[in-house]
């Protein structure tokens, strides 16, 4: 809230206050709507009580998703104007070059005009820096400005302004110089780009952009002049600042100071006000063109369409962007032994009954073909929680069912906004923008310094698109309420209460904007993990389904948990090194937090779906090896002893405390994250300590604590604690094992071991040597640096669908090594799917709406790898089915092949 007061201070006193209120009001409105949705969604959740699988803390992420999703429709959203932030987001492969060394940076920048910059990691400073090209007269050609990373924020050294992520930081310094000698400047090509496609094209050049002809400088290096806004004095001041380099390192005149205030801190704090003046009539057309191409399907856009945003894929009625990616494309070479069928006819009708997930796409491509408005409306109301329908169905049965009714009111309410977003009603869109006109700092949409719809991002908002939504919501509101001209507002301050009254409910939207980059990142990774078109998604999904389907693949509970832990560590390594995360994680998360964030993401995308399975398996293992029975018997014995017999000589928790502790343990069981479980364990320990110390001021060490803990665990009499502790012990992030969590976890494990071996201990007063060995082995396992298995160990899974006339589609995940041929896979399938006449079946690849039968000597894993390596990820499926029949009559691909 302090930002609001600051903002109020900084704002132009003549009326910006109204806009502030207005904005706040509209945001509250947003939240209200969302809150309604949330409530409905929760009420309608019948599965909510099957709490073994659903975490307690699930509830809140779910809620957040409801909020987050409608806003999160991707960076390439449908507005026709591109802000600095958008441009930065799209073109980070060009300017974000963390691997570049000093010499390379000099080499690139020396040929560039002043103001051009790179962000890289300086080996000398061990920090990220902005390498800024200085004007020629400054002596050295470039200067480095170190970026300070705290746990939550990024800032320039010496500056008091910090940002949630790197993009926001750079965008800000493109507008305001703050501690820099002058503002940063985007390369002309980027600054002048008008469409996302253009930016995407530039981005694809990556580092080579700098030496490519695309990076030619404009004849006049200064930014184009803009038509003068009404308030010319202020505009002049701004322009002074906007012309990069001109005022470099000079003492600032008062007018410049003023300008920097308006353009700087103010922008940062509430950029909502910086809406652009211009009508930009051409804007809507700009966006239309690439989509028109898609619709008729004949002309390929010059550059591949931007990656569809993950949430769009996950929405139940996928957005138009998705279908764009399902365009025909050439098949990978090794597959093409059999001819690729012309898929033209196929594409004109919905796909027959492909594996479940494709069906959804068929529907959506049809939707796109027939009516855009429908698809657009659908796009505006994605499902909460994200996830492909099938994935969601399995993980949260209740939520999926409940979503549509909950969504309805919101969808209808939002539809005008959605339409605007899709360029359906540019007038309305522009109307919304106009309202904020007097605060605009620029009037040309193509200018790199142009602030527009994405500017609100400078706060802690959910996502780029969330700001879009905010804005749309606002413009929507605007169309209903009498239009408020800024001039009017200035005239009388008593218009205020009225507006406030009508719109104050909107204020609550502010709260929804506190989605930190960390949460965004985790959400993004979780979404990616469900998107099988990404390599990462495939890796995770295949592993999860393999584990669920192959119960016999682990010899012991330890073996199973260990493999899962290894997998998580491995995937973390992969994510931190691969370029699949876009934007790169380093740009959103300060370096020392990256591992923490990735670990949380792993819990969400691996442990969450596996939790039920792991628990069931643990139970099975412990029942089978008798340890459960042993624990049960010994628990009874220990419970009969009084505290003194157990070596307890301090106050112990009474019945009520034990009940409290049991409640905590029960909520622990509902968590999937080992870290959250450990947090609850710590709370239990805290409670025990409070009872022990009993205000005596005495401090008790392990001599006293461990006996009490043993006593308490016995009193709780919960067999499940055994598996809980095992789960935490094996799955907790190794870096946490040395801390407080690790300590008390070790103690709890020790206490439980003592209980389990109570009988023997009574007999020998010592743990059996066997038990001691187990303890040793555990710590050895968890603390030595084992050689981590490579990704290869986990990527050898192949998901094969089995399509049968009568039974529809079933799927199995098979272990298929890279050198296994299709012939072998077919054999494996015949076994697994229990096919009587394997000669009638074959393995097919379904991709791009076409079926291809794979010949016997091809390697499915290689084909899969190739599909993954394509620049545009696609959904593909391996399907094991009859060669000569198509159960649903829609496709009959292989007639010719078999005949010839």
């Amino acid at each position, binding site marked *: 809230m302090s930002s609001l007061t600051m903002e109020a201070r900084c704002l132009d006193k003549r009326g910006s206050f109204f806009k502030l209120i207005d904005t706040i009001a509209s945001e509250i409105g947003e939240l209200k709507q969302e809150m309604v949705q949330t409530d409905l969604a929760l009420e309608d959740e019948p599965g909510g009580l099957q709490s073994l699988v659903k975490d307690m803390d699930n509830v809140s992420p779910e809620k957040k998703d409801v909020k987050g999703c409608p806003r999160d429709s991707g960076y390439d959203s449908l507005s026709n104007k591109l802000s600095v932030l958008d441009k930065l987001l799209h073109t980070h492969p060009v300017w974000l070059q963390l691997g570049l060394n000093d010499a390379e940076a000099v080499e690139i920048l020396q040929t560039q005009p002043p103001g051009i910059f790179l962000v890289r990691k300086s080996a000398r400073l061990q920090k990220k820096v902005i390498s800024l090209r200085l004007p020629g007269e400054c002596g050295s050609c470039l200067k480095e400005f170190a970026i300070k990373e705290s746990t939550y924020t990024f800032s320039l050294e010496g500056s008091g302004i910090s940002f949630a992520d790197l993009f926001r930081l750079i965008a800000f310094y493109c507008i305001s110089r703050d501690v820099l000698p002058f503002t940063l400047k985007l390369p002309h090509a980027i600054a002048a780009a008008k469409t996302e496609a253009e930016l995407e094209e530039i981005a694809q050049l990556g580092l080579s952009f700098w030496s490519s002809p695309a990076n030619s400088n404009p004849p006049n290096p200064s930014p184009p002049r803009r038509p003068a806004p009404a308030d010319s004095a202020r505009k002049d001041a701004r322009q002074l600042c906007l012309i990069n380099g001109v005022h470099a390192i000079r003492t600032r005149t008062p007018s410049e100071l003023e300008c920097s205030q308006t353009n700087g801190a103010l922008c940062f704090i509430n950029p909502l006000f910086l809406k652009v003046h211009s009508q930009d009539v051409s804007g809507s057309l700009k966006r239309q063109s690439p989509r028109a191409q898609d619709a008729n399907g004949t002309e390929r856009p010059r550059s591949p369409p931007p990656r569809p945003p993950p949430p769009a894929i996950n929405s139940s009625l996928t957005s138009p962007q998705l279908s764009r990616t399902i365009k025909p494309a050439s098949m990978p070479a090794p597959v093409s032994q059999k001819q690729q069928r012309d898929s033209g006819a196929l594409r004109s009708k919905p796909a027959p009954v492909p594996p479940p997930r494709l069906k959804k796409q068929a529907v959506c491509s049809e939707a796109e073909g027939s009516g855009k408005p429908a698809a657009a409306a659908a796009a505006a109301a994605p499902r909460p929680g994200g996830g492909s329908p099938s994935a969601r169905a399995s993980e949260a049965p209740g939520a999926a069912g409940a979503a549509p009714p909950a969504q309805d009111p919101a969808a209808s309410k939002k539809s005008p906004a959605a339409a605007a977003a899709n360029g359906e009603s540019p007038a309305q869109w522009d109307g919304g923008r106009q309202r904020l006109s007097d605060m605009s700092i620029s009037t040309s949409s193509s200018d790199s310094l142009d602030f527009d719809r994405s500017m609100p991002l400078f706060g802690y908002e959910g996502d780029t698109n969330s700001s879009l939504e905010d804005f749309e919501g606002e413009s929507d509101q605007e169309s209903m309420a009498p239009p408020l001209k800024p001039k009017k507002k200035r005239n009388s301050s008593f218009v205020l209460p009225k507006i406030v009254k009508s719109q104050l409910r909107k204020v609550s939207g502010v709260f929804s904007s506190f989605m930190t980059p960390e949460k965004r990142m985790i959400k993004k990774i979780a979404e990616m993990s469900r998107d099988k078109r990404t390599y990462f998604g495939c890796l995770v999904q295949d592993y999860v389904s393999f584990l669920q389907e192959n119960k016999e693949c682990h010899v012991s509970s330890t073996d199973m948990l260990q493999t899962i832990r290894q997998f998580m560590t491995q995937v973390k390594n992969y994510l931190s090194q691969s370029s699949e995360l876009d934007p790169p994680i380093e740009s959103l998360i300060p370096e020392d937090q990256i591992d923490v964030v990735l670990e949380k993401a792993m819990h969400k995308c691996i442990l969450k779906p596996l939790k039920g399975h792991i628990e069931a398996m643990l139970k099975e293992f412990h029942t089978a090896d008798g340890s459960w029975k042993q624990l049960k018997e010994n628990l009874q014995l220990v419970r009969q002893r009084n505290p003194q017999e157990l070596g307890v000589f301090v106050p112990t928790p009474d019945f009520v405390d034990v009940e409290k502790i049991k409640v905590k343990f029960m909520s622990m069981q509902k968590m999937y994250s080992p870290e959250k479980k450990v947090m609850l364990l710590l709370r239990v320990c805290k409670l025990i300590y409070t009872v022990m110390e009993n205000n005596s001021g005495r401090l008790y060490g392990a001599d006293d604590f461990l006996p009490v803990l043993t006593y308490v665990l016995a009193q709780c009499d919960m067999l499940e604690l055994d598996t809980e502790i095992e789960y935490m012990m094996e799955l907790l992030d190794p870096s946490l094992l040395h801390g407080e969590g690790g300590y008390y976890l070790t103690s709890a494990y020790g206490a439980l071991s003592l209980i389990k071996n109570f009988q023997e201990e009574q007999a020998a007063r010592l743990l059996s040597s066997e038990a001691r060995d187990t*303890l040793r082995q555990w710590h050895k396992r968890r603390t030595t640096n084992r050689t981590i298995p490579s990704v290869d160990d986990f990527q050898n899974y192949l998901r094969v669908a089995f399509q049968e006339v009568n039974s529809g589609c079933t799927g199995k995940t098979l272990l298929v090594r890279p050198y296994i041929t299709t012939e072998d896979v077919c054999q494996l399938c015949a076994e697994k799917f229990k096919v009587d006449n394997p000669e009638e079946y074959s393995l097919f690849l379904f991709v791009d709406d076409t079926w291809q039968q794979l010949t016997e000597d091809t390697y499915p894993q290689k084909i899969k790898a190739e599909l993954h390596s394509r620049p545009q990820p696609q959904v593909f499926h391996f399907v094991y089915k009859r060669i000569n029949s198509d159960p649903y009559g829609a496709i009959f691909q292989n007639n010719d092949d078999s005949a010839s």
Partner: protein
Amino acid sequence: MMAIRELKVCLLGDTGVGKSSIVCRFVQDHFDHNISPTIGASFMTKTVPCGNELHKFLIWDTAGQERFHSLAPMYYRGSAAAVIVYDITKQDSFHTLKKWVKELKEHGPENIVMAIAGNKCDLSDIREVPMKDAKEYAESIGAIVVETSAKNAVNIEELFQGISRQIPPLDPHENGNNGAIKLGKQTSQTGRRCC
């Protein structure tokens, strides 16, 4: 900027010798007002400067009773250092100390720094363990040795400073925060049986 290294330190010794008193004294003593509070005295942390590094001690207390002896490996595993405490007024506790040293040598982490603390030196008039014995023994095993008094805050700082000095500085090229793990690789003591 100083790098913080987390060092796991494990406390061993008979029950009643004052293990946790030593830690409490160390952690809660004067001028350090930014200790992060922990749940209880069995796990405590304290950060001290050492050269151009900060050492964050993560101190793991163990239960000294015989029946908990078997759990000790879980506690000392992965430790950068072990503080083994005996009571100078109890010969038995010194005997137990020797058992701990033996166990650490056999099963403990490689290159663990061992520090012997003869606690309760304020009671030297009823001393049972001569200072000389402890010194000789410590020398024979290459361990730090001090006589401490948790009660009167004698030699407590020194004990941990001694440990800090024995921790080899991090390789300047490696900027990790898991110093305790890296330590094992970098110290250059002679080879030892692996457990």
